[in-house]
């Protein structure tokens, strides 16, 4: 398949077996165009950005800002603040927006959230005494929307994961936003898993903030962003201080930039932005919707096969869900299984997937998780299933 050829790492052998990389919800692999874009930056254009006079600095500035422009149009967002990743983006939202705007108001989270969308709000609540409310998960692994609606009063913010990194469940964010806005609460979407799998239109959705990471969508490590609409942007107060985010500094007082730079203190993630822009260019040339259906089919096949091996599978694999299959064997420890799979070249992740409250709700400590992305094939899925069968025969 053509896509695979674009990802050099897929040529690798692991323990004498071809790599079958099924850890995409943790991070995705990078196509050559992304690696080469960063290479080219470092070998041709590297310089510090902003207030640039010389040619290299101009090229670096244009490259860095081009990523912002692409992101804004990709997600149809008013503002795009570059961060180190989803986690930093949510922490930025909590500090820059939450500290000044959430006084005395409750924060609604879901039981399905990633730690990165829980801990920053717990920290905020600890400082300011906000009440934290959680939308519970029903037995069918969907959010209890009635409980949500019943809890909305007095809330200033609803934080919800677009797509669960453990279950692949895609949440009804449209409905969640509608209810929140009707009740005067803003909404932050954790799109770390959603953004790689489908195009999200922030302004159409009407979401107020959205956080994502480049490394989960073929981009480099070390960069992500917080997308915000204009109203929310204007409510945000500076968070980190330093170079590039100021307008003037005197010994006693500083004034700040008025655009996104206001929230990007210090030398920005230049090569990373250039790599991310290349990744978006790459993904933009694919038919993401077609890929989504193809991968979901693979996930359903895998889930069925695993169930037939007596595994418990956590997930629904509904039409909008992502291709993530979390599962457990009744006796073979998940880490042992993952180690044994690794001996056959298959990379899966185990553990709590940074979602302990969700696993607690499911009554377990961890799962084995196989997650699929654009370069994965049905043949790989079959190989994974075959290896798993062999391992169970030998070890379970």
């Amino acid at each position, binding site marked *: 398949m053509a896509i695979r050829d674009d990802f050099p790492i897929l040529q690798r052998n692991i323990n004498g077996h071809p790599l079958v990389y099924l850890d995409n919800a943790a991070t995705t692999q990078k196509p050559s165009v992304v690696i080469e874009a960063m290479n080219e930056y470092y070998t041709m254009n590297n310089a510090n950005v902003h*207030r640039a006079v*010389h040619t290299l600095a101009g090229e670096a500035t*244009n490259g860095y800002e081009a990523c912002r422009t692409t992101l804004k149009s990709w997600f149809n967002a008013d503002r795009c603040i570059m961060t180190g990743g989803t986690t930093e983006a949510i922490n930025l939202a909590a500090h820059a927006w939450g500290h000044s705007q959430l006084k005395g108001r409750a924060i609604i989270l879901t039981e399905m959230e990633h730690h990165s969308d829980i801990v920053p709000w717990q920290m905020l609540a600890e400082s300011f005494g906000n009440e934290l409310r959680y939308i519970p998960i029903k037995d069918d692994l969907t959010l209890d929307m009635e409980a949500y609606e019943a809890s909305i009063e007095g809330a200033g913010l609803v934080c919800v994961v677009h797509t669960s990194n453990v279950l692949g469940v895609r949440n009804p964010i449209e409905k969640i936003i509608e209810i929140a806005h009707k009740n005067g609460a803003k909404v932050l979407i954790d799109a770390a898993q959603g953004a790689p799998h489908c195009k999200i239109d922030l302004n159409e959705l009407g979401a107020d903030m959205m956080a994502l990471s480049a490394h989960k969508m073929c981009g480099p490590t070390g960069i992500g962003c917080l997308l915000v609409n204009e109203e929310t942007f204007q409510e945000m107060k500076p968070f980190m201080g330093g170079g590039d985010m100021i307008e003037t500094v005197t010994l006693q007082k500083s004034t700040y930039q008025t655009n996104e730079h206001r929230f990007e203190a210090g030398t920005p993630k230049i090569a990373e932005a250039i790599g991310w822009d290349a990744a978006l260019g790459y993904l933009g040339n694919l038919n993401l919707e077609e890929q989504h259906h193809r991968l979901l089919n693979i996930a359903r096949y895998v889930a069925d096969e695993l169930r037939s091996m007596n595994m418990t599978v956590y997930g629904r694999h509904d039409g909008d869900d992502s291709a993530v299959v979390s599962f457990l064997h009744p006796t073979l420890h998940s880490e042992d299984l993952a180690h044994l799979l690794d001996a056959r070249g298959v990379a899966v992740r185990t553990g709590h997937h940074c979602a302990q409250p969700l696993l607690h709700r499911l009554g377990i400590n961890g799962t084995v998780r196989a997650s699929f992305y654009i370069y994965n094939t049905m043949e790989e899925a079959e190989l994974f299933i075959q290896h798993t069968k062999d391992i169970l025969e030998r070890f379970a």
Partner: protein
Amino acid sequence: MTYPKALIELIDDFQSIDDKMERLEYVFDLASEVNELPTSLWSEETRIHGCQSEAHVLLEIEDGKVSLKSGADSKLVQGLMGILTIAMDNLDTEEAKKITPDFAVDMGILNSLSPSRSNGFRNMFDKIMNELEEY
């Protein structure tokens, strides 16, 4: 839109210069084209933001025509103002409103300027256009 003749000549001139230093030299020379705004009239109202250098412009309408006075502490910036002066000064207000920054792209000056400078140029242009809209 069609450009004023002086501007067309300027675009031609710029396009014919290959060496960057010579192009900059040409911009330098155009600094004398501005109708000078005396520094005594420089104020918060006339300031162009986003320039690293001090740059000021005053737009007035006289007899339905644009009158542009400007100045900067950087000769390059003032040269850019000179270009804007050639492009817009003395134009009918309605004609002036039709101008887009495309001519600067055609001239190739935006490419031979650093992003901060071409930002500065855009801020200059936008400031003039915004004020023009108010008339």
